[in-house]
């Protein structure tokens, strides 16, 4: 059967190939006339302070409003556009993450970390453009569709007990948003492959060629994200332009043979790397369907300040020149390839130094001359990434199977001190912190027990909480949601929120197969709406067209996710149904036996009879004994 079908498939493939080429030809023909479907691919590499390397792949496809060319697409994945049309998704984000983002050493105050640092497992949120009462149905259908599309158990988000409706604290604030996470979802290649299928060149050309599975999954952090927005162009809402943004963020260790470095002096030198040494592959040529494909190397603010570029004072003038040799032949490091363009960040309010972006055009390279940048460090450099204003961590308190408390503790980082001292002119500045926390129903949170500690002093809740929205959990129906807006004084050192809970009981069929592992409580989202992580690079014509850099320019609030918590619940002994059945049967037998006995017996008559007997006989016990012995003897004889 399969063998028979094969030639047909081949034919079909050839057909589609030709068809596609036709379409491309067609697309290029009327390029001037209409807005076109576009695809661009970019890779950003950034050295991290703890000897690691961040690689951020950014693929963006966009489709113009569908009225222009019906439901056919050249580049844009059909599955996504159908999904958007079917469920009227206004905005959606799906992320698969493995590992934890280390906010302390990898930073939390730049566009990459605040939008790409995600909680472990799967996170999905979506905004729908449908009437209120249809949202839940749309959400359920969407989860099932995505589940099929990405080979993941996203369909578990279908049940109302797993997703929630954030009111206002969640960034895309609107009533139509639904939010759900699956913290224990394992992420692997089976999720990556369908994600790559959405790209026009898959992983067969250009930057996507670098996505070598073994080296990706060896990394310390791996987050694959799919973000789509559909912008309405007409009032009907059917015609919409869709922008699909696919990002993959990985944190890798450039050279894994750390054991070789013994000398303390060598340990502080950042490891040198090249793309081929990290990914084991090189970029050869571009994806012909892509509008642009480029690689960026980002040196962030802290590193730039540490490197002390020789002409730092007149950095701006050099940036205008753009080809100043000083920027890439630094005494402390060396680039193996000359950058095509250098961008300097526009002065930001938060930091004194500015980050530098080197840009490399992949188009220039071909298979015979593959593209491979490398960075060689010459002197040890140590710097700190810019951190979130407050470092958030969440943990459990208490012990035992009965009750406990969740604590979210916020600690100020060095960054805040500098910023606050600069910003607080009148001395009464306030730091706004939004906390969004979802707890599953089996963790029964008592919202009245919310307590606030500021600088190690217990304080009245009303003093610091400006706004709070709580929707208590319903058993087996909906999770508990807590949204809090905290107004903390700028000079706060530590703050903590604690809230107590009781552990609930589940029915035996509600336990997952690995019930003894415990149950996950999804990450809380801590966001700082007053702060915006954005990097504005100096204006340039070509800059506007780079989707990655324009993404950096967007003002998104600084966000951080807390740890996933594991709450051990009381579990029944699953290996004991047999015992339970036995005991139950025994109890039932005893109960019904004695009940029948009682119903059958006429008590008064029997007592009279006994009394009459007692009058005759001397003692009861000797009689019993003699009877017993007689019976034993009798039965023994019978048996013989």
């Amino acid at each position, binding site marked *: 059967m399969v063998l028979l079908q094969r030639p047909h498939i081949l034919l079909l493939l050839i057909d589609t190939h030709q068809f596609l080429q036709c379409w491309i030809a067609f697309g290029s023909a009327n390029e001037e006339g209409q807005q076109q479907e576009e695809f661009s691919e970019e890779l950003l590499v950034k050295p991290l302070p703890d000897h690691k390397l961040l690689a951020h792949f950014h693929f963006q496809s966009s489709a113009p409003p569908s009225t222009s060319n019906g439901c056919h697409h050249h580049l844009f994945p059909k599955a996504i556009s159908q999904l958007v049309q079917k469920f009227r998704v206004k905005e959606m984000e799906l992320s698969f993450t493995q590992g934890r983002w280390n906010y*302390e050493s990898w930073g939390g105050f730049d566009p990459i970390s605040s939008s790409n640092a995600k909680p472990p497992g799967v996170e999905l949120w979506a905004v729908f453009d449908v009437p209120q009462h249809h949202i839940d149905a749309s959400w359920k259908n969407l989860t099932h569709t995505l589940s099929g599309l990405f080979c993941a158990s996203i369909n578990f988000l279908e049940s109302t007990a797993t997703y929630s409706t954030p009111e206002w604290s969640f960034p895309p604030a609107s009533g139509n948003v639904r939010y759900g996470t699956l913290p224990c979802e394992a992420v692997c290649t089976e999720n990556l492959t369908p994600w790559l299928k959405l790209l026009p060149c898959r992983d067969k050309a250009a930057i996507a060629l670098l996505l070598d599975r073994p080296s990706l999954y060896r990394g310390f952090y791996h987050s694959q994200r799919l973000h789509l927005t559909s912008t309405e162009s007409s009032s009907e809402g059917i015609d919409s332009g869709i922008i699909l943004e696919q990002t993959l963020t990985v944190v890798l260790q450039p050279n894994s043979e750390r054991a070789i470095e013994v000398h303390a002096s060598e340990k502080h030198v950042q490891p040198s790397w090249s793309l081929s040494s990290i990914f084991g592959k090189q970029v050869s040529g571009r994806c012909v369907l892509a509008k642009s494909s480029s690689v960026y190397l980002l040196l962030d603010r802290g590193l730039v300040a540490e490197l002390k570029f020789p002409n730092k004072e007149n950095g701006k003038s050099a940036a205008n020149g753009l080809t100043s040799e000083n920027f890439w032949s630094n005494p402390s490091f060396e680039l193996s390839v000359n950058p095509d363009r250098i961008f300097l960040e526009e002065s930001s309010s938060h930091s004194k130094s500015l980050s530098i972006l080197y840009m490399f055009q992949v188009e220039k390279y071909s298979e015979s001359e593959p593209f491979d940048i490398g960075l060689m460090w010459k002197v040890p450099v140590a710097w700190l990434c810019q951190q979130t204003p407050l470092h958030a961590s969440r943990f459990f308190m208490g012990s035992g199977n009965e009750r406990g408390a969740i604590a979210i503790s916020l600690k100020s980082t060095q960054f805040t001190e500098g910023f606050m001292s600069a910003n607080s002119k009148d001395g009464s500045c306030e730091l706004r912190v939004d906390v969004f926390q979802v707890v599953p129903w089996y963790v029964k949170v008592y919202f009245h027990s919310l307590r606030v500690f500021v600088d190690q002093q217990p304080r009245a809740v009303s003093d610091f909480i400006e706004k709070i929205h709580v929707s208590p959990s319903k058993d087996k129906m909906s999770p508990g949601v807590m949204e809090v807006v905290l107004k903390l004084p700028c000079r706060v050192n530590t703050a903590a929120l604690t809230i107590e809970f009781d552990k609930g009981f589940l029915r035996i069929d509600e336990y997952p197969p690995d019930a003894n592992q415990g149950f996950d409580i999804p990450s809380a989202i801590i966001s700082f709406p007053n702060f915006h992580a954005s990097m504005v690079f100096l204006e340039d014509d070509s800059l506007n067209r780079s989707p990655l850099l324009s993404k950096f320019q967007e003002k998104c609030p600084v966000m951080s996710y807390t740890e996933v918590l594991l709450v051990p619940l009381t579990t029944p002994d699953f290996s004991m149904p047999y015992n339970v059945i036995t005991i139950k049967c025994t109890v039932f037998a005893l109960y019904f036996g004695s009940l029948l006995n009682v119903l059958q017996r006429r008590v008064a008559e029997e007592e009279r009879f006994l009394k009459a007997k007692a009058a005759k006989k001397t003692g009861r016990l000797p009689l019993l004994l003699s009877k017993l012995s007689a019976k034993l003897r009798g039965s023994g004889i019978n048996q013989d």
Partner: protein
Amino acid sequence: MAETKEKSLSDEKPKPRVRPIVRLGIFLISHSFHFSVVCCTAGVLALFLLPVLAKNTYISENALMPGSASPMLSNQHVSDGNRLVKDLTNPNSKSSETGIESHKIIAQYMLDLGAEVSFHKFHPQMNQFHPLHFFSSPDSGKIQENYSCSSYGINTVGIIRAPHGDGKEAIVLVTPYNALKSGFGEALSLGIAYSVFSLLTQVTWLAKDIIWLVADSQYGEYAAVAAWLREYQTPKFSSLSTPNAEMCPDVNNLFELKGHSISGSKFSNSFRRAGTMASALVLKVRDQNEQFEDTISIYAEASNGQMPNLDLINVVNYLAVHRQGLRVNVEKLWSLLNSSWLKSLGEIFESLAKVAKSLYPKWKFGIPATEYVEGTATLASSLYYQALGVPTGPHGAFRDYQVDAITLEISPKFSLDKVWRNDILLRGGRLIEGVIRSVNNLLEKFHQSFFLYLLTSPSKFVSVGVYMIAFALLIAPLPMVAASLYVDANSSSNCSKGDSSTPSAITDTDEHSIAIRSWRWLNSAKLVFIVHLWGAIVSLLPYFISQIPDCSPTTSFMIWVLLSILSLLTLNSVLASPLACAKATQEKEWALVKSVTISSVFIGLGLMSVINFATAEIGALLMVPMCLLAQPLKLDVRAGTLRSFCRMICNLVLGHIAFPPAAFFLLKGMLDGFGNANVGDFWMWVESLWAWNSATYLFIGMVQLPCWVLCISILFHTC
């Protein structure tokens, strides 16, 4: 068999019948004497049979897979560990008075590995007697205002984050270390832990975070670990004492120096956490050793006889024996090893097994006599430490938070050359690595294997299903005897009354007297209740006595005894006397008292067996014979037969032994010799019991002591 047959036969007959179950009860009650003798003997015998019945341990959880991966700890890591040992034993690192230098060295080493490091400063918290605080979950401790700068300890904590893990769980490795007077053993244990730690920063298989806690043991190992756990599990966000402590110059100095020297943000003075603790290992190396080979001792008993999951011990035992060639030890009562009676008992069992085997070749339950003796010694110590309810090491602190933990004490054969040291570092390190790797494999928490067990050797155990039989047999006669005594007391008084009064009076007052008689036990119950009330008061008294400043243990004990006697007399005169006098004339009153006493003992033992089985078992061994045999001495003297004489002797001996202080001194004498017994010792022992919140203390105060008093009162009953 006989009963079932009886049932089936009696069903057929159309005559009035007592229900079979009632008939069985009546039968047992009427033969309670034989029944109790048989049961008690069987109970004691079953206890001695336990080493024979012990099963081999096996790894129940498949996910553990111990030893399936070859160890990755190489000589490189060992030399790293050796470097730390050298630095720590270097004389100039000990120059500082507070031992801060060595903490800095450890922290620096951890940081060089890329671990997150923090110091945890704590004030040693004395264990105090909290009345009615038993069994409650650990609290965050009292805030004490008067902490001085000089008395604090510093725990150094290093955390490795699992590269691919989600950080939900963590494994804890604890090495107690006293910076002020550390022996070579402690430094060596740090070396082992460090070599494992340096390996774990490089491996890719880590799924759980690793916490290495260097517990400052200058105020005791347990206190340091408990303080850290308290901060980990129940932190106090509002602390009044912290600003106080921050003013101490030493501490500030420590923190500032560290902050300067380290690039990056891996160091912080704030308390660092990882996820839920999956299990914990405490590693110690003993300084001197008389053994001829490298051995490793496992300590597992936590407070109130709680044990870690058997799988944890199995994994350690398996890896140590089959992979690293270490000999594994569990605690034994050494004095039992040389006892000849045990040996002969073992030989009897052995020969019995031989006979059984010759009869039917498939019966293979015998073990050699020497093995039997060793098993019994181990079992006895297992019972003893569980019964004491005091944890045998710092691992006890973890059990309070439902974390499985054990202490491993490596005692190397004594020699000082470098090769030997490397060997110990390598083998110890590989053992720890293997255990951590196994626990790391776990997807779920430890739940497959046993939590209730007694060890008879590192690879043999007796599970709850088996050892409960011995206890059940021991206490089974109690309700029977109580019932039979009650029946006897009622019926005999009935008869005596019937004899003395006129026949016409019987018929008149029959109903009335029966009603009165059937409530007579309330009197005895009141007496028993009063004595138990007194027991509660006696158990509370030490709290007040301990408030008296500078009191030697001996005087405290004396005060305690005096107050106890005083309170007993007062209670007796206030509550008991008026009614007791009125009814004292009744015959057989002692039987009723005995019956109620036995019932209360039965309830007490039953409850205790749920809380701490070992205590209940040992208590039952003492109390059951005493309760069953108790009879007024006057009656025995009057009877004058050989049987009553024997009973009298037994009663007197048991009456002495079962008195808690007497039992304590007897046990202590048996273990350490009678030479240095001191009255104050008992007070100290009791103090340690309540400090550790041991339920044994409550048992002694509220079950055993009242029972003893009641039995003594029966012995001296005037009838």
